């Protein structure tokens, strides 16, 4: 765990230490201070503390630069404030520093001007001159004493020494031999038995006949030492010590001390300047660092709530409204934080309401989507400019187009890519443009898989304020309904025809055959032949009518299928074998091995296959080919078995295609027109479909879809499926 010392606490501690040591240094600068011995240590410790402070400030500056680079909140404001603090403190501090330095230098220089220097030299010279004069006078006095003792014997001289001491101002007189041995001595202090000063090395000069005078000190008292030869063949010498008067001694000491002190101060002049400049610079640096530190500390206090505000703003921008800021201060920033919290609370409430509204709208939209999707009718909505805005899934399937691609585009644009929808556009667009009330139209459109009849109902849409905001068109595919109605009508006709026609046919046939039997023998050959031909014609026509009536009966009957799991491939192959006997009619079967089974009635489905194969054979007129393709097919998430039949006959034109599956519509010379109608009816009863493949141009092409047996529907009762279909019709 890293120990973190607060920056503010460290700075305060360092500043206190620095100012204390500066104060101690100031005291220590006095030579007499007991702290003078600690001056260097104080200076060193002060320097180290300043360095630590500088380091701390530098770290903060580096940190600030890093935050500036990262564009952190509050970094620019901190920079500005710190710079402002520096400028505000540095300018006056620098001015004070400059003038203090100037004043100090001039003051120090003023202490040592030329006049003072010369005066000090003069004073010293005066002192020296005074002493030299004293020495000269003492020498002269000594010479006089030597003159008085001249010519006297050594013993007498020894005796006269005391007399000479009395009349002179000397403190002691000694008679010395040539070897500097004391021969006789007389001093003012009775206890003294030897001279107070020993003979100096300069005694050699005296040996050569020269006098010697020298200034010396005895116990810090100045004395004049004089050595003079006696005129006794220069064999004896006198050493006379003259004390300097006390007043002159004190003055000389004072002058010397002042001169030495002045010289010392003169020498230390540069060092003094350096020392004072150093201390002043230190004070300036410490002041600057203290200012910067205070700026940093102050800005930390100010920036902290701003950072929190920025973090809070970013949190709000990211959608986190639960993070409220802590109000730590009661000043303007605290008020700002409180206002921010209030704003965040209001935004959060508004956002929650908006979210709830959006959720509700979304639920409504989903509900509407589900509603539209569940509708069996197609729904198309248009905006105020009659551009397609919305469509449900059923509309896509009815029109066989992905209407989503045309959202925002007009209805005619839809028909540009689909010519079969041109009729729809042509009918609906004028109604949408001018209708301001509900309208209804039946529209016939030619789809690729046949003609469709749509029942369209339109209604303009208005906002709550009554403003026109678009229109909605609901349409249903009523083709099957119309077809069912037709089929039902035709079935009723067929049932009645069968009922009305079938009953008299047998009596007609029996009556004709009886007439032939009764009258044939009575007629001549010519009439008999006529009768035979007529009766044969009647019988043939009755048989034909019976067949037709049977067809009617088949068409009229419904739900006679006995559905079971059926191998459709095997059934197709059986039927193909029947038609494969025709030499010029080639049938090609193409089917996979693992084709699923179907639920179907083999009897009725065989009839369907017969009808289709028979039609193909008749279409190619006995010369041609029929291609039979069986394959699995997925449609509307259901598995089907698809049977495709392509012959090389005359084909079916577009006009014929519209009515090809309608009953009593035939384009052949012989035919009831019920073959394809019955086939369609049976297939639809099986839950399948049959349509013409209009893409095929080599003849006629039919595509039959029958529901396959899967794991899902294997448990279902097939009859139910058929019954349901029947009920739907």
């Amino acid at each position, binding site marked *: 765990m890293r120990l973190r010392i607060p920056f503010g606490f460290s700075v305060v501690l360092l500043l206190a230490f620095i100012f204390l040591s500066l104060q101690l240094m100031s005291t*220590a*600068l006095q*030579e007499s201070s007991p702290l*003078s*011995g600690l*001056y*260097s240590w104080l*200076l060193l410790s002060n320097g180290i503390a300043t*360095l630590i402070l500088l*380091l701390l400030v*530098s*770290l903060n500056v*580096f940190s600030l630069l890093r935050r500036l680079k990262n564009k952190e909140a509050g970094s620019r404001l901190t920079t500005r404030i710190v710079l402002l603090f520096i400028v505000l403190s540095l300018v006056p501090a620098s001015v004070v520093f400059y003038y203090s330095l100037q004043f100090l230098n001039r003051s120090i220089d003023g202490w040592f001007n030329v006049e003072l220097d010369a005066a000090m030299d003069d004073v*010293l010279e005066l*002192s*020296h001159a005074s002493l030299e004069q004293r020495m000269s006078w003492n020498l002269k006095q000594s010479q006089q004493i030597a003159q008085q003792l001249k010519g006297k014997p050594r013993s007498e001289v020894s005796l006269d020494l005391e007399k000479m001491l009395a009349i002179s101002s000397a403190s002691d007189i000694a008679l010395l031999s040539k070897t500097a041995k004391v021969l006789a001595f007389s001093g003012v202090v009775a206890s003294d038995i030897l001279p107070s000063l020993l003979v100096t090395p300069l005694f050699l000069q005296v040996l050569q006949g020269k006098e010697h005078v020298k*200034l*010396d*000190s005895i116990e810090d008292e100045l004395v004049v030492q004089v050595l003079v030869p006696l005129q006794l063949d220069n064999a004896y010498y006198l050493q006379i010590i003259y004390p300097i008067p006390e007043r002159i001694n004190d003055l*000389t000491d004072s002058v*010397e001390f002042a*001169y*030495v*002190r002045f*010289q*010392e101060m*003169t*020498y*230390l002049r540069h*060092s*003094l300047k*350096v*020392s004072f400049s*150093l201390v002043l610079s230190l004070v300036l640096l410490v002041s600057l660092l203290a200012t910067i530190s205070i700026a940093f500390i102050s800005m930390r206090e100010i920036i902290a709530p701003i950072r929190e505000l920025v973090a809070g703003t970013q949190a709000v921008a990211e959608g986190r409204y639960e993070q409220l800021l802590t109000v730590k201060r009661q000043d303007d920033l605290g008020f700002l934080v409180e206002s921010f919290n209030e704003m965040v609370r209001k935004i959060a409430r508004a956002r929650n309401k908006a979210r709830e509204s959006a959720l509700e709208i979304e639920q409504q939209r989903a509900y509407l989507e589900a509603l539209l999707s569940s509708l069996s009718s197609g729904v198309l909505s248009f905006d105020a400019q009659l551009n397609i805005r919305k469509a449900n899934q059923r509309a896509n399937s009815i029109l066989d187009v992905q209407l989503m691609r045309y959202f925002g585009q007009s209805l005619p644009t839809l028909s540009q890519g689909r010519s079969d929808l041109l009729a729809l556009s042509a009918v609906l667009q004028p109604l949408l443009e001018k209708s301001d009330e509900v309208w209804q139209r039946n529209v016939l459109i030619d789809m690729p898989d046949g003609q469709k009849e749509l029942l369209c109902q339109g209604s303009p849409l208005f906002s709550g304020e009554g403003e026109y905001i678009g229109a909605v068109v609901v349409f249903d595919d009523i083709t099957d309904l119309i077809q069912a109605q037709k089929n039902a009508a035709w079935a009723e006709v067929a049932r009645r025809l069968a009922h009305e026609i079938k009953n008299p046919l047998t009596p007609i046939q029996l009556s004709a055959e009886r007439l032939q039997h009764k009258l044939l023998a009575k007629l001549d050959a010519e009439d008999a032949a006529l009768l035979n031909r007529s009766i044969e014609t009647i019988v043939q026509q009755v048989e034909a009518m019976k067949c037709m009536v049977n067809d009617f009966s088949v068409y009229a009957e419904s739900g006679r299928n006995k559905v079971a799991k059926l191998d459709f491939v095997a059934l197709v192959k059986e039927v193909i074998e029947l038609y494969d006997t025709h030499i010029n009619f080639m049938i090609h079967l193409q089917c996979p091995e693992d084709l699923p089974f179907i639920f179907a009635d083999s009897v009725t489905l065989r009839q369907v296959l017969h009808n289709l194969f028979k039609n193909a054979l008749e279409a190619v007129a006995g010369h041609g080919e029929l291609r039979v393709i069986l394959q699995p097919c997925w449609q509307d998430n259901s598995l089907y078995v698809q049977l495709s039949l392509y012959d090389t006959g005359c084909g079916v034109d577009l006009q014929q295609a519209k009515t090809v599956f309608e009953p009593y519509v035939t384009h052949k010379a012989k035919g009831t027109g019920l073959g394809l109608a019955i086939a369609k009816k049976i297939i639809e009863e099986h839950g399948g479909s049959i349509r013409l493949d209009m893409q095929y141009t080599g003849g006629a092409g039919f595509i039959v879809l029958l529901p396959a047996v899967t794991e899902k529907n294997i448990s279902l009762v097939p009859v139910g499926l058929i019954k349901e279909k029947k009920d739907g019709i």
Partner: protein
Amino acid sequence: MRVWKNKYSFLIIFTLLSFTVFREGKASESWVSVQSLNWLEREDVRVLQLALDIKLSVEAIEAVHSGITLYWDISVKFSEPSVFMTGAVVFLQVERYSLRYDTLFNHYRVQNETKANLQVFSSLEDALYSLQMRQYQQPLVAFSMISSCVDAEIDLHFDIESLPIPLRPTAYFSSAWDLSTNKSLVCD
């Protein structure tokens, strides 16, 4: 962490810079040095002959002539190598000398502050010479004689703290005031 690395680097660089910038270039020749250090045995004493070379820089000479007293502490230590390399001290002498110029008498005073001996010289050279040739002796009895080996350690320390206060910071950082030396004579 990178930030801490930078902080340490900054501290090291700053410390090095402060030592290189504030310290003036040292003269190629030192002002004070030990010229020779020899052992002599005379009858029953062991004598260490020490020859010092003491010169003063221009700044120091100027300071002396301006009345500033210079102080040296001359420390001499004899020791015998003993167990665990601790070194048993046989002889230790510390003497404090001062050099001062007397304006009135125009002579130089060399004083042994420890023994209060005063010597007066008419020239600076003579005064310095009095400090240079030194002898230290110790009776052989004082040594344990377990080993004939005796180490000598000489330390001539110029006392900057005795200089006037304004001069001290300059003296610490100026080679002109580097008037100290030390040397050891270690026997094999």
